């Protein structure tokens, strides 16, 4: 029994060493908390700034749309029938009469058709896509990775 006690006493930590361990653990926890808080703060600030940027850009889009509408209307006013007739008149043009026109057959000519205002290349409305990395949990991530690797390396 004495031998056992002597062995315990020999391997037991010194008190100052135990204190150091506790302090170290406390500091580690503190550093972890600070890191988490820092990361949280960083992400929150980033999200807030991005949100403000979205708001600013949205307002800018609205303003630009109004400016475009203004410009389009102004352009239409400048090229209105009345304005164009005045300009043509000032440039000594006059409306053609039927007997003043010579018709020439041009191969491949197609008469003027009505306008097509479709947006070129437009097929479907584009909606913003949020990548899964931004929304999935760790569990989802690992499950998806596993599913992806299984499907990639699985039996044909």
């Amino acid at each position, binding site marked *: 029994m004495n031998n056992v006690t002597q062995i315990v006493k020999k391997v037991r930590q*010194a008190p*100052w060493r135990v*204190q*150091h361990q506790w*302090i170290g653990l*406390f*500091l580690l926890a*503190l550093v972890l*908390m*600070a890191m988490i808080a820092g990361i949280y703060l960083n992400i*929150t600030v980033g*999200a*807030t*700034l*991005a*949100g*403000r940027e*979205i*708001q600013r850009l*949205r307002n800018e889009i609205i*303003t630009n*749309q*109004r*400016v475009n*509408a*203004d410009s*389009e*209307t102004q*352009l*239409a*006013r400048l*090229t*209105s*029938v*009345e304005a164009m*007739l005045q300009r043509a008149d000032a440039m000594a043009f006059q*409306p*053609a*009469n*039927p*007997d003043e*026109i010579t*018709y020439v*057959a041009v191969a491949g000519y197609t*008469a*003027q058709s*009505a*306008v*097509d*205002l*479709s*947006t070129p290349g*437009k097929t*479907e*409305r584009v909606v*913003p896509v949020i990548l899964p990395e931004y929304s999935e949990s760790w569990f989802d991530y690992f499950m998806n990775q596993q599913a992806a690797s299984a499907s990639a390396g699985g039996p044909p």
Partner: protein
Amino acid sequence: MKRNLHTWRYVSVALLLAGLGIAILVQIIRIQNSPEVAGVINQGDYIWKDFFPPRGEIYDRHGSLLAGNKTVYEIGLDLTINPDMPTVMLAIQMSGLDLNEVNYRISLATDNAQYIILDDFVSAEKAEQLMTLQKAANADPTGKNLDAIYFKAHYGRSYPETDLASNALGFVTEDNHGYLGIEEKYDNILAGIPVRILVPADPRRATEYPIIPPGQTIILTIDREIQAAIENILDQALVSTDASSGTIVVMDPRTGEILAMSSTPRLNLNDYQSITTVFPGETPFNRAISQAYEPGSVSKILTMAGALDSGAVKPDTVFFDEGSILVGGSRIVNWDGGAWGYQDMTGCLANSLNVCLAWVSSIKMDSDSFYSYMQRFGLGHATGIDLAQETSGRLKLPGDGDWRPVELGTNAFGQGVSVTPIQMVMAASALANDGKMVYPHVLYAQIQDGKQSNTRTQIVGTPISTKTADTISEMLANALETESSTALVPGYRIAGKTGTAQIPLSGGGYDENDVNASFIGWGPVDDPRFIVYVWLEKPQTNRAASVVAAPIFKQVVEKLVVLMDVPPDAVRLQMVGR
């Protein structure tokens, strides 16, 4: 001793850091729970926000803008920051705003009002003047600032062509509602839906803002150049004939597309508030669809078409005109009171003989057959054209309380029956389009999500056969050539018919002094590209449609063949033959 010293140092550092951490936590908790922050979060969590989507634009068939949008401003006053009213009013006056309107709005404000709308739909020019004054006042530290004036930009309707096609377009009022014409008919798709909704104030939730779709853009069948040309011709015609009003409609008989539609008066759509002055009393906004009248002899083409189609007559059927005929116990005479002797059916049309047409409807046809054809031509029913405020006219039928037997005769030459110009155009499309009657429409296409959907041609009926349609067109073309009509256009074969109609009085009987003069025609006869309807109400220089309306038809066609690239018949047939 040395170890104890180290322990003390470590404990001190740990306590310091712990204290710092606790202090930070306490501060965070304190800030989070402070009433100031709590107030900001609660107030700013959701905010009311107005979304004004732009109204859809309206283009003509070649992409010229007929109705667009422009920036206008709501100018308000924030009463929470104690504005200096004399300075504010002075600035408003200097900016050219309507001071009476502003004063009126201020007088409506309640005692506890925090914000007053001083004026709305203020032009950008005036608003910018006021903004300049505001900046100048704010830059002067000694002066009184104009911080309380608040500007909110939004859309207002703008019509760059002012009164062009105004009768077909209609207008939009300040409450973003369309009235009359296209603006009213398609208000539900043109108007985006302005919304006032709660949105999260938290910028991190900016993606939760709703996307408010704009109004749909539409393209009309109207051709701006043709529209301008016919309006110019109509304006000159009113002066030269001293008519009280006029209407011209141009339609493609193959598709029912309205290429131009004008009636008088017209309205500067940017100043729609003057509508009560421009259209006093019961004046129709668009006579082409909203004013039914007795068309007179132009409707003889429908009677003859029905008679030919039913086999009641043939083009060479001979009628001996004695100058009058009894129908339902009443005597019907010709427009000149004369007797025209032997006439074939083409002669009856060329000389516009009432007696002959009354004979056709009452003797060669019967009431069942005649009215059946009139109904198949759509008389008595609205065409359904996509313009607001269409009326249907009236076709009295046997069995109706106010129908009299003589009307079987008078209806044959367009008296006792009322139609709108668009009804006549639609009915005549059957004659010009191989018997197929087309639905008249003004909407060419609508744009949604960048994709254009075109309106399809609709055949609303086939009242007569192709053979009958070709025959009546030939007869009418021959009739014009026989009488050397003033409607003829050199180089182009045209089918058409004049109409000089008496005007019924509200108390019964007909006006002895005034008439309605009309002309309906289409061409080129072998491949019609246009139907033109001209109507002059109460022309004073001459009563005969062949004198006042036919030349206007000719002017319109002369413009149309140029603007629509329709070569003379000889050239066209030569090109087709190559």
